[in-house]
């Protein structure tokens, strides 16, 4: 068992180091630690599941070890910026003020073709449109163009503030908690339903937004 524990520790750090050395482009959506954890846990979990000659503990102990290690590393990352940079890496600027940062591209093994492909994927025809491009820790490229879309103030129109609608009736069920959170009561809801000419059971979705607008979708087939 101690062999499994020590091997798990060694393999975890080995794969983490390996992935960090590989560069961000290989990692994709996941952070390095998450990727290591996902791959190792999925693999470890299947071994005792398939082979009954192996005790369950031989799978459980490495998985617990990995989870505890991952939790510890993420907590330490929250406490220390330096540690976070070591574990998760730091974003790399690939385009700065329209200029390609070739050293950063080499460090991340990010080719020009990959950069152009990513820019095209985000709707930019070429480098001339891009002011900044940042390779994030997740491996995604964040692109900032030279010109930003015009704001409501620039266009001289009144801003329509965005607010998240709160669901008050979900598939016929009144969510009292949300009703109270909006500062409304059952009497108000009854009034709204009266206007709609329906009872809660007949409503599929009823929501209220920050501007006091009520949106109602009735159930079909009633």
């Amino acid at each position, binding site marked *: 068992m*101690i*062999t499994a524990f020590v091997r798990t520790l060694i393999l975890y750090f080995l794969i983490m180091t390996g992935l960090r050395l590989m560069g961000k482009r290989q990692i994709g959506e996941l952070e390095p630690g998450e990727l290591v954890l996902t791959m190792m846990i999925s693999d470890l979990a299947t071994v005792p599941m398939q082979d009954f000659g192996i005790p369950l503990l031989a799978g459980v102990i490495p998985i617990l070890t990995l989870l505890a290690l991952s939790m510890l590393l993420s*907590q330490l990352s929250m406490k220390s910026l330096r540690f976070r940079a070591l574990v998760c890496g730091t974003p790399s600027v690939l385009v700065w003020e329209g200029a390609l940062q070739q050293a950063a591209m080499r460090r991340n093994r990010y080719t020009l073709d990959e950069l152009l492909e990513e820019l095209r994927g985000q709707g930019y025809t070429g480098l001339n449109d891009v002011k900044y491009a940042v390779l994030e820790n997740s491996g995604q490229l964040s692109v900032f163009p030279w010109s930003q879309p015009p704001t409501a103030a620039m266009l001289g129109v009144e801003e329509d503030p965005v607010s998240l609608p709160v669901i008050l009736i979900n598939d016929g069920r009144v969510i009292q908690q949300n009703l109270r959170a909006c500062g409304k009561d059952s009497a108000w809801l009854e009034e709204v339903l009266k206007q709609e000419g329906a009872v809660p059971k007949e409503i599929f979705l009823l929501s209220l937004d920050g501007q006091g607008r009520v949106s109602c979708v009735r159930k079909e087939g009633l």
Partner: protein
Amino acid sequence: MKYRIFLPLGVLAGILAFCLWNAGTMEAHYLRWQAQLENAEALARAGNWPAALDALAESRQDWTRRQTYLHIVTGHGTVDDAESLYRRCLVIAAAQEDTEFFTELSSLREQLRLLAEMERLSLRNVL
């Protein structure tokens, strides 16, 4: 905030402690079984087969009592091999076939050593 760091540290420390305890327990069991088997061997060499058989049966009982623990912490194949060697030794001891008995007993002792060795913290095992 602190408990979030101490929790995983506690889990890791707990696992490490369990692993070390397990290695120590396996070693203690192995040393006891070895002593029991050495005693049975000495009795057989002295020609006292009934006493050798009793000693071996006692050792097997002790071994059987640890079966659940052994199956939880170690590979089932290794435990099952040792179990069948115990049975063979008992049959041969009852038949008083000395040459075969000593060979089988030696295999059994080696199998038990292997059980303890698998759980030991050593560079050889880790690498």
